[in-house]
């Protein structure tokens, strides 16, 4: 078996051999640091080749020229020290190494001091994968970098030391747990490179590699958009379980948890949901929704028997505001459920697996209207109770509630209490009244207009989830719900009714 393995790779050896030796042994550089590193390297290379050759030549020459023979048993007279000579051959290497030191230091400072206006990417290292987070909350396993733009990477480790190392971009830094390590770089050549973990980190160290793609700004934006939109593929909203399967590898859960029942560093996810779990504290519990959720969010609290307390805290990785976190969490739990033969309604998330299916027609929604109507005061024109209830339901299932409160309390986004019908100051300096058109626009194009005092952090995915004729009903339900929370609602703020 070993032999056949060897033979197979024999053919593949010939190709790479011709390409051996790279660019003076280095990979072809692709960042602003590369030319400097290359220059110093070549300088060093020549010095090394010169001195090594000199010494080889001298040893060989002396061995032959001064060999001991029958007639030449003794050394020729020659002094056993010579101060000027000794000073010379000390000072020359000293000067050479000082030049190398100075250059090495100068170039190093360039690597150390980032320019002010950088594009910032978050890097999370964990056994044994890398996860990248971008300003638009996209999360990816591939590192996308914009061409000719200074990028700053803020790196953290969830467990042990890792080493962030991209040979082609001439940059390396250890990722030390408990600290935020930063580096910067500016890619200068479009292409696909590799990130490899350089600092030994255990079993999967050599597999802790990620692709790095340097792309033109336009291409880069496209990649990011695609990376941000994990919920939709080819215009079709994906079942959450399928998204969860992606996240399973994006977040590196697969580093410890298998999906097929085989052994791993953590418990397998196969047949986990709905089944009994033995805890380290002696208890036995059922892996229902609450349990799974807690196990993900608070890894150490209920340790499973036979496993170490080593799972990193993931909550902060679920980048973005609370609702995306929640949604990702639910997607993950749906995926876990999809792997189990005992999955049931108690182990499944309340939010439907295939968005826009069960929940809307669910009879449970019917209970809400009375409450909602009561809350809104009921003095105005009648509210369509069922629709408002559906909106309220969506408010939590879609995770809007993570940022927008419905009671006037502050949140990451503007509260929905008394939103409809009130004027809104925007970051572009204008003020607009929150009518139906405005609210609709804000939901579908969150990044276009931003309310003053808030960050542009609302995910673009709602455009895909709630846009289009098919989703009109859902969108309107939400807007009805927003209306129900306002004392200034009226025909202009309410979704158009009737034909």
């Amino acid at each position, binding site marked *: 078996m070993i032999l056949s393995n060897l033979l197979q790779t024999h053919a593949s050896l010939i190709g790479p051999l011709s390409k051996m030796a790279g660019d003076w042994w280095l990979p072809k550089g692709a960042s602003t640091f590369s030319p400097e590193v290359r220059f110093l*390297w070549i300088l060093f290379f020549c010095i090394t080749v010169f001195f*090594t050759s000199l*010494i080889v030549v001298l040893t060989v020459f002396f061995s032959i020229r001064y060999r001991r023979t029958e007639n030449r048993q003794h050394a020729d007279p020659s002094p056993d020290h010579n101060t000027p000579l000794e000073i010379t051959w000390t000072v020359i290497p000293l000067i050479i190494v000082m030049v190398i030191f100075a250059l090495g230091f100068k170039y190093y400072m360039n690597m150390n001091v980032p320019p002010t206006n950088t594009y910032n990417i978050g890097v999370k290292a964990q056994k044994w994968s890398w996860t990248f987070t971008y300003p638009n909350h996209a999360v990816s396993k591939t590192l996308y970098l914009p061409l000719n733009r200074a990028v700053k990477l803020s790196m953290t480790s969830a467990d042990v030391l890792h080493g962030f190392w991209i040979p082609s971009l001439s940059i390396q830094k250890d990722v030390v747990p408990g600290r935020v390590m930063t580096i910067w770089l500016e890619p200068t050549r479009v292409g696909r490179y590799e990130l490899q973990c*350089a600092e030994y980190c255990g079993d999967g160290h050599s597999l802790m590699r990620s692709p790095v793609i340097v792309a033109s700004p336009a291409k880069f934006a496209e990649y990011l958009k695609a990376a941000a939109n994990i919920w939709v593929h080819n215009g079709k909203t994906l079942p959450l379980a399928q998204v969860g399967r992606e996240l399973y590898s994006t977040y590196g859960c697969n580093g410890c948890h298998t999906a097929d029942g085989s052994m791993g*560093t953590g418990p397998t996810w196969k047949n986990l949901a709905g089944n009994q779990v033995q805890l380290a504290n002696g208890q036995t519990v059922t892996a229902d929704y609450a349990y799974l959720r807690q196990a993900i969010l608070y890894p150490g609290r209920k340790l499973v028997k036979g496993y170490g307390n080593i799972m990193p805290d993931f909550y902060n990785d679920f980048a973005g505001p609370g609702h995306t976190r929640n949604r990702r969490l639910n997607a993950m739990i749906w995926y876990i459920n999809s792997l189990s033969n005992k999955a049931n309604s108690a182990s499944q998330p309340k939010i439907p697996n295939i968005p826009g299916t069960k929940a809307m027609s669910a009879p449970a929604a019917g209970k809400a209207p009375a409450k909602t109507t009561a809350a809104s005061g009921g003095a105005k024109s009648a509210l369509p109770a069922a629709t408002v209830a559906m909106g309220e339901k969506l408010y939590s299932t879609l995770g809007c509630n993570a940022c927008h409160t419905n009671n006037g309390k502050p949140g990451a986004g503007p509260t929905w209490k008394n939103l409809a019908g009130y004027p809104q100051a925007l970051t572009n300096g204008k003020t607009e009244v929150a009518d139906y058109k405005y609210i609709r626009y804000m939901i579908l194009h969150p990044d276009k207009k931003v309310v003053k005092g808030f960050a542009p952090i609302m995910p673009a995915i709602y455009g895909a989830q709630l846009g289009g004729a098919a989703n009109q009903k859902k969108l309107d339900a939400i807007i009805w719900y927003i209306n129900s929370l306002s004392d200034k609602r009226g025909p202009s703020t309410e979704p158009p009714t009737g034909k």
Partner: protein
Amino acid sequence: MATISLHEADAAVGKRKNYLNQTTTIRSWLFTLDHKRIGLMYLAAGLTLFFIGGMLAEVIRTQLLVPTGLIFHGTGTIQSSYAAYKHYNQVFTLHGIIMVFMVLVPMIPGALGNFALPLMLGAKDVAFPRLNLLSFWLYISGAVLAVISTIMGAVDTGWTFYTPYSIDTSTYVVLMVSGIFLLGFSSIFTGLNFIVTIHKLRPFGMTWFRMPLFLWATYATAVIQVAATPVLGVTLLLLIVERVMGIGIFNPALGGNPVLFQHFFWFYSHPAVYIMILPAMGIISEIVPTFSRKHIFGYEFVAFSSLAIALIGFMVWGHHLFVNGQSAELDAIFSFLTFLVAVPSAVKVWNWLATMYKGAIKLDTPMLYALSFIILFTIGGLTGVVLGALAEDVVLHDTYFVVGHFHYVMFGGTIIAMLGGIHYWWPKMFGKMYNEFWARTACILLFIGVNLTFFPQLMVGAYGMPRRYASYLPKYQPYMVASTIGAYVQLVAFLIMASYLLHSLFRGKKAPVNPWGSGSLEWTTSSPPPTDNFDTIPVIGDHYDPYDYSHLQFDPAIGGYVHTEEHVGPHHVYHR
């Protein structure tokens, strides 16, 4: 005629008892206080460990023949790959621990130092023979603990034990670290012993500047052993405390600082590389003049540079931490000092070459090793210089370039010099010669093997291959295959070496008193020496110089060198 009388004296000595056959019980070996016997036991134990470490290296190289791993590889799922690669990690960890802590650090002082130091000095033994025996048994105990921990659950941290991985891993770190703790004490005691011996047991007339350079080197090494090793001990103790009690010194999860461990570790381990290389340089400083029949060039410089390297060597440990986030100012200081300490090493190479200049050079096996050393150490030192340059270290740290660098200095330097030393003192140790043809063949083969193994590692490291990888990108494969072939060539060389050395032990030609024509004292007593080293305590004359060869003449009848000048007394007063 002096020649004749020496010849006869030799023959007489041959029938006398020597340190090898004075007593023959196993007990008399295991509890011996004779520095020469202790040296031989170190040699036997060390070579055994070197063999184990070497076989682990062959496993490593075989694994890396194919990108996914030839020996340890998964069965399709990623988890199975993890599980398989863990074994690879255990293998390279064990390889590193054995080679560094049980071979490179203790072997030259323990085996060659113990055997040769009192003889070269003209002393009867080391200052504290009992402490010496304790050192040896601590060495054995450390190795045994390491074996036990390996059987229970082989450590997978790398020889550097970086936290927090070494705190998290489920392998038997505490036991292994305890073993290394004992090895550390062994090293400290040996150093202490040598320092006192050199200070106190020099015979009358043996001034500091009449000592052979190997003794200067051993002295400088001993200073590092005594001063640096306790830091390793404390660091390892803290690691044990951290693992057992979870205090939070190094563990970031408990508020500790993992980088602190790296500082502690390298505060020992960088000086430790000089523990490895200084005695090696000492050996070379003996071999090169002897086989060139010419006085060492610049004795004072070579002597003092050993001390200078030992002292400055304490201040450069931070060059292992350039990319771990220490401040740029610190980086600059450490880089500067690293370059500073590189210069005296470089100058020693010039001194050896100048010694050869106009010499009468004979390429016997020890000299071939010395020449190999000079070339390989040059490459190793120069690659160290590029690693010391900050911007270059950023692209080379933790790659195979570093692996190549330290193998050039540790294998090409320390091990090659050690083998040179073994071949040089072998006739004195056992009173037997070895087969010169096979010995030269093995040396040349080893030289080729070392270059074939480690040169491609320099290339593939520069190309971007990280170290400690059980699997790798296919583009690195050609280099990896070349390196593995080199490792196999080395294996062949070592097998040849083992054969002719074993043959020599049992069937070797009898060695003369001074087969190489060296001027230092160990070559004036019989081969092998009597238990008390010298029949009469050597008295060193005013003109004694261990690097003066003018009074030595080759005598074909005995196959060795003899004094041609008149001298007072049979073997013990040296005028020149």
